[in-house]
């Protein structure tokens, strides 16, 4: 599958109430992603593309577009490097249709 899909365009249709400065998901030890994780599967499994594989081998996370599915936490089995909580009440994705 070589189709390039711009997921930002999809996320643009969604309604969010971003909790600025308080991301509900964190990478515990960024070094582990860079040095220990071969697959970096979060960078293609996350349905909102919150995780990006950087050119220098690091993985960065921006949670603003998060759909709160929980996949990243569950697939990070070997290193358990994802600290995952729900956003504070009322924040995060607000589905209009669901």
């Amino acid at each position, binding site marked *: *599958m070589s*189709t390039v*899909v711009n*997921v930002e365009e*999809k*996320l643009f*249709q*969604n309604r969010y*109430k971003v909790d600025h400065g308080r991301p509900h998901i964190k990478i515990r030890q960024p070094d582990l992603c860079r040095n220990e994780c071969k*697959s970096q*599967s979060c960078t*293609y*499994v*996350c*349905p*909102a*593309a919150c995780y990006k594989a950087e050119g220098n081998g690091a993985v960065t996370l921006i949670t603003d577009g998060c*759909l*709160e*599915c*929980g*996949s990243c*936490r*569950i*697939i990070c*089995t070997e290193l358990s490097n994802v600290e995952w*909580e*729900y*956003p*504070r*009440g*009322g924040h*995060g*994705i*607000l*589905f*209009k*249709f*669901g």
Partner: protein
Amino acid sequence: MSEKFDVIVVGAGPSGNAAAYTAAKAGLSVLQIERGEYPGSKNVQGAILYANALEQIIPDFREDAPLERHIIEQRMWVLDDESFVGTHFRSDDYNKPPYNRYTIIRAQFDKWFSSKVKEAGALVICETTVDSLIMDGDQVVGVRCDRQGGEVFADVVILADGVNSTLARKAGFHGEIQAGNVALAVKEILFMPQETIEARFNVKDEEGVVIEMFGKITDGLMGTGFLYTNKDSITLGVGCMLSDFKGNPNRTSPYTMLEKMKAHPSIAPMIAGGEMKEYCAHLIPEGGFHAVPKTFGNGWMIVGDSGGFVNAVHREGSNLAMTTGRLAAETAIAAKAAGKGFKAKQLAGYKAALDESFVMKDLHKYRDMPSVFHDNSQFFTTYPELVNRAARTMLTVDGIDKKTKEKEIFSSFRKSRSLAGLAGDAFKLWRAFR
């Protein structure tokens, strides 16, 4: 908030609403806590509503529930890259009220269900995330919320907090979800005029069609696609086992899979011109019988997706959610009436009721299904291609005689899969379905 309630329900999806409604209706004091801005704002489903489970809770729900279309036709498609082979079942029986199943839009439906919960007397608080359970020794006695002074107490806490089941995990009632036990699904809602939908799907007003799909659309992963007709929109989605997404050598993202599915020559014309207004993702617990965790303990019961109550084979979830919610509430009502406390012993009736209901009976029937499909990806790649090729060969009129065509089809099956493999696959399917 230092009051004590009979029951606290965490979450306002179908299971939580069923539990809160049933308990409040019976006169128990009920607090329901929802983290979304309004009930439904965090919830995602296909969505099909099976009437029966809701009828048992609110018999006259059809009078004012926001329903989209009742389903009169069910299509099952097996796709390769260019074509599909399908079966359609359409019956006028499905046009006789009371209707059996409907498409719904969850944000609207959950809001409606929540209004019934409030009418029944429950206190519903939104925009509040429950962080953890409050324990007194090994007894759950309340919940801690992300509000100031947010400790609330109850005799029983019903965990309806969804597939991620954060609270039960934190409390150690069960472990982390396995990637092989959940499907990750993504979907879009595409709006178009009602007349367009009715013309494209050959239906009249309020009649609807569902299409379940499997085959090449999932890039060789174990999964399915779906298309549901709403009143003036179409929901289109695809889901695969999370472990398969992770292990896929093509590293295909869910949105790429969805986009490719939308471009399939058999699907694109049905959704052409649709205006996309929302993109959702959600996990579906599909581990079935063997993945259902401990369902109750001292002062707590678990319902709906958080308990893994989904029948993946029949694509049923919300009906199991509502039924488990209702049964948990009935258990709490009985325990309260008995007046002997709310330890595991007094809540054991919940498990007995689950086992007696279609919920555990159906999950038990298909207990081996997840592993059969999991270990045999040919069901999602080889067979869809073979079946489509067979149909193409047989139906293309090109001067080749039918006997030769038959031979070609048989040999294509045998080339891709040995006779023993074919027989083995048939046996595996039979054993898992019986």
